[in-house]
């Protein structure tokens, strides 16, 4: 137990965090984030409530922002799942960015190699290739961690940076360069994701994945072993669970899912259908880090990642309206995301501790 400078308060460790508590904490974080951002809005001369109304009405308007909201939301679900699975085994996969890039490379390599294959054959092939590339990249980090206990946080961050430049190597003036020399060639039409009501089919794929992951962790024997390793590695060892094998497995699965998001991102959004300039694809790559925050908010529950990701997706899309429509200063859109990430990170405190009043007892 630790005491703050104010002697009447102390922190008490929480033994078991219930789902209900987690939802309350998340709700509180959301409210605080809205209030903080609201302050900025007021400072810039806008009415917060009006602004929020604009943001969400735009984001969820089927004719305006909804398709993109869903698209970005689905993207986040992929990357949240990619973070959740390794963390269930106690491994911090910070490498979604790199695995996403590798998945992009895997998918595009297939598309460029077999542009004339029918979509029914090409697209599954692209998905599989993306998954394999992502899985390999993840498994590399998992192997280093499981076998040699190299810190996975640092390794995955390094791998992310390497992967960014790998994509650069291929696109900017490289073998995949398009006419502009800084983006890639367009994807062949057969590679484009089929759309249902303006959303790519990969949306269904990812929701199915979320459900699958949920059952995988809860019901299968391997999922069970993963959870035991994540809860208590010593107990895991005592009952015969192999940490090195599971480490590689979870990182491979996580990497594969993040790899799938490569196809989804570029082939699933008609505005892209290619790998854009480095600044642009880096901006998307940075979005993968939201997988971490979302994973923690959802208490590692894959099903919860769906609504949470869509919510963040709506903010990503909706806040663009602030600059375009309301003529507010540039950057206000990304500011909201920034505030949310800091507030949610800080509120992780409440996942571990309660604040209690100390009754001063006189002897």
């Amino acid at each position, binding site marked *: 137990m630790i005491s703050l400078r104010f002697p009447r308060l102390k922190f008490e460790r929480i033994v078991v965090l219930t789902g209900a508590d987690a939802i309350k904490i998340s709700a509180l974080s959301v409210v605080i984030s809205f209030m903080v951002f609201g302050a900025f809005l007021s400072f810039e001369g806008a009415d917060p409530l009006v602004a929020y109304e604009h943001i969400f009405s735009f984001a969820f308007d089927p004719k305006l922002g909804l398709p993109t909201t869903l698209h970005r939301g689905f993207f986040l679900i992929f990357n949240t799942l990619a973070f959740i699975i390794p963390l269930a085994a106690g491994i911090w996969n910070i490498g979604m960015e790199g695995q996403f890039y590798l998945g992009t490379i895997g998918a595009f390599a297939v598309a460029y190699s077999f542009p004339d294959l029918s979509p029914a054959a090409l697209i599954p092939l692209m998905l599989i290739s993306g998954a394999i590339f992502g899985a390999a990249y993840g498994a590399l980090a998992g192997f280093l961690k499981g076998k040699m206990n190299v810190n996975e946080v640092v390794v995955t961050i390094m791998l992310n940076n390497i992967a960014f430049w790998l994509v650069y190597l291929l696109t900017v003036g490289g073998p995949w360069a398009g006419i502009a020399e800084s983006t890639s060639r367009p994807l062949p039409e057969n590679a484009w994701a089929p759309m249902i009501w303006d959303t790519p089919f990969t949306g269904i794929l990812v929701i199915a994945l979320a459900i699958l992951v949920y059952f995988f962790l809860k019901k299968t*024997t391997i999922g*069970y072993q993963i959870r035991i390793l994540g809860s208590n590695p010593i107990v895991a060892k005592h009952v015969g669970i192999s940490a090195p094998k599971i480490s590689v497995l979870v990182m491979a699965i996580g990497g594969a899912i993040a790899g799938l998001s490569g196809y989804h991102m570029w082939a699933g959004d008609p505005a892209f259908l290619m790998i854009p300039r480095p600044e642009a694809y880096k901006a998307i790559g940075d979005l993968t880090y939201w997988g971490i925050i979302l994973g923690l908010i959802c208490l590692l529950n894959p099903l919860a990642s769906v609504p949470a990701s869509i919510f963040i997706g709506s903010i990503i899309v909706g806040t663009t309206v602030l600059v375009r429509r309301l003529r507010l200063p540039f950057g206000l859109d990304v500011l909201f995301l920034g505030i949310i990430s800091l507030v949610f990170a800080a509120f992780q405190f409440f996942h571990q501790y309660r604040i209690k009043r100390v009754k001063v007892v006189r002897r």
Partner: protein
Amino acid sequence: MSITEADILFKDVKKGETILEMRGITKIYPGGVVANDHIDFDLKAGEIHALLGENGAGKTTLMNILYGLLRPDEGEIYIRGRKVVFKSPLDAIRMGIGMVHQHRKLIPAHTVLENIVLGHPKVGKILNLDEIEREVRELCEQYGFKLDLHAKVWQLSAGEKQMVEIIKALYRGARILILDEPTSELTPLEIEKFLESIKVMAEKGLGIVPFVTHKLPIVLRVADRITILRRGKVVARMRREEATMLNLAKKMVGREVLFRTVRVKAKIGEPILEVRDLHALNDRGVPAIKGISFTVREGEIFGIAGVTGNGQQELAEVLMGLRKPIKGKIIFRGRDITNASILERWKLGMGYIPPEREFGAIKDFTLVENIAMNYYFDEKFVKSKLLLDYNKLRELAMKAISEFNIMAPSVDTKAGHLSGGNLQKLILARVMMRRPKLLIANLPTHGLDVGATEFVRNKLMEYKREGAAVLLISEDLDEVLSLSDTVAPIYEGRFVSILPIERVKKEEIGAMMAGAFS
């Protein structure tokens, strides 16, 4: 050397003068456990006054109070006649009390000198290591310690590490040295050196308090006085002349009524476990098992009696696959499993109850999920090779609740909500319901109340009657004697003897556990 507060306090101390008095020390833990019950203890300058007692006798609590880690509920401490109150170890250090921990409190990556100097109040901002080195070397010479001050601590042997801790305490002006199990990790040669050095320290007027649970022969060689604790009280005070191995052991272990568990005789059958010439190292790379051979048969409870730290934990770990032996063979039901994986051992029919409940159950998981830990690899409980059959597992959990008398609202309760006793029963259930042919019960009643303890013991007895082989490891001699068919006292990694229960005399076993006859 820079003057410390302790220097002033201990100015002109004469040998034989009482420098430490603890009067009426009482400490009661929440829950009512009386760890120390009005203990009086005193120490003279130049004296080695040993404190003996089993685990749970109250030594650690008393030691922590003396060192400032705990506050007593009643009682006072006087140093050279002056009443002192310690709010933290730093207060105790300032007053001249130094402690050498059993598990070294040193930083392995730093050098000896750096460890000695860390946090010393009189060391200046800039480390003038030459000056300090000179002073420390003088100190080492004074007490006959040979240390390479620039070696990194991780390179040192256990004995050298202990020397570093002693010098560290002395450099901070310690006049009273508390030694926690000082010889438990030393080789025989290091033990000799150590005994020499504490004699020298006593010569120079320091007061030394070694706390020991065993290694009686060693204590007898150097202690001037011996105080024995049992159940939180002082039960004997002796001078060296009066003490013998046997009467010390008797006082430590006490004359106790055996528990009501009735020993049942079962038909002894085939050998299930054969261990041949087993050798293994502990975590520090020091030999912990030095050639153990024995056999456990169907229908037999083989009890290993010993104080913690003599190799029993390592033995259990090697048998279960948690630790690799460096020599020897383990044969289970006729099969050489020396190199088998942990999972294989479970599958082949071995079962292990770990010594700490934290190693055996996950608090966040429900009862069902905890039971599943021993069934996830069992085809009968896995549907279509992939899915855990939770229905069958729930049935199993309900059976566990009734057979093992576990007080829990339902099988979906989280294990963290169970009391210690019920948690232990859960672990027992999970392991025993698989009917392992060999059950290794490692400290199975550790920390349990009387009711749970009796339940566990009866269960073990029942299990043996069904024809299983049970290997029991326990620190409670009464428990070993009341349950076992064969008793093997363990001391420093070897079995002192292996005796059938009929030929066992309690005091003899107690003495063997403590080092006699070895």
